């Protein structure tokens, strides 16, 4: 998803990086598909098996992205932290608004749990992509 991961280091002087932004963006896409499935069936109960599978893959992608991220040597962690913190604040507000709408619409039980977990992935994946894409171009020193 992130063109920033493409190999253009000769032109821009960028170091090669693991595909963190690709993985977190893919996780975002999966939770968006899961959200569409859930919303398509509302107010009836959606087939939770498909949504659960999408969510599990999304979580696995985010964990993999986090694992790759922490293994990067000489990374601009200060920049990553600042961008991640502010982006997280923004997307927690957005996720909270969506969660509020679902609760207000009487979504309960397993469906609400899945929605909450998907919104958590959403609220983490977007800031991860933004912060990584920004910090990878910043001098770690």
């Amino acid at each position, binding site marked *: 998803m992130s063109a920033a991961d493409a190999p253009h280091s000769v032109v821009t002087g960028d170091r090669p990086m693991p595909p963190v932004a690709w993985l977190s963006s893919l996780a975002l896409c999966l939770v968006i598909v899961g959200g569409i499935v859930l919303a398509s069936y509302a107010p009836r109960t959606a087939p939770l098996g498909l949504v659960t599978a999408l969510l599990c893959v999304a979580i696995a992608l985010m964990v993999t992205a986090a694992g790759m991220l922490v293994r990067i040597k000489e990374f601009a962690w200060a920049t990553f932290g600042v961008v991640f913190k502010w982006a997280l604040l923004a997307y927690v507000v957005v996720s909270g608004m*969506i969660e*509020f709408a679902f609760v207000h619409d009487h979504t309960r039980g397993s469906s609400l749990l899945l929605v909450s977990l998907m919104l958590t992935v959403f609220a983490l994946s977007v800031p991860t992509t933004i912060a990584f894409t920004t910090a990878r171009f910043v001098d770690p020193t």
Partner: protein
Amino acid sequence: MSEETMVGAPTLSQPHAREKIQIVPLAGLPVVALAVIFVALSIGLNLRWGLMFNHVVGGGLWTGIDLFVGFVIGPILGKLSIPARAEFAARFMPKMVIIMPTVVMMTLATGFQVARQAGNLAASSPNHAWLIVSFCVVGVMAAVALGVLEPANIAVLYEMNKPVPNGERIGRLMKRFIYTAGITGVMQIATLIIMTRLGSR
């Protein structure tokens, strides 16, 4: 992200003393807070006018801005010199950081409630199929905006804030906007068709 530094050089490779900009314009945050409160109240109190206002105004701005930037501003920008593009982007993109997430939040959070109140969510509704298509259209736009464009936007602003911005890097990040303009344009026109059909049935 609100750090202030100097951007917009006569050439991107020359450090130069210029006016300061903010990546996130703090002056816009109270307006965002008001929009969030208005949306929350509209949903929580089932304010029919509030829901419709947020959905129509937010959606109209979202579609209008996307199409205008993609097909009017974008091509003009492409014909400007690189320093002129940098000057424009340094002033334009921070505003988009505030405006776009706000209008998207207004549109999506209230759209689901409007559909529920109008009965379009029911599987028996003649509008149900159109609604599902609109979910898919919005899903594509959200993936493009959040996974591709917003990271590039912030990264470009950070790059411009450096004493010596890397012009090649900025150019490569900005190409994402060109590559995705077509997708976004098709999706927004699809949105216009779907929403006007839903509103006329």
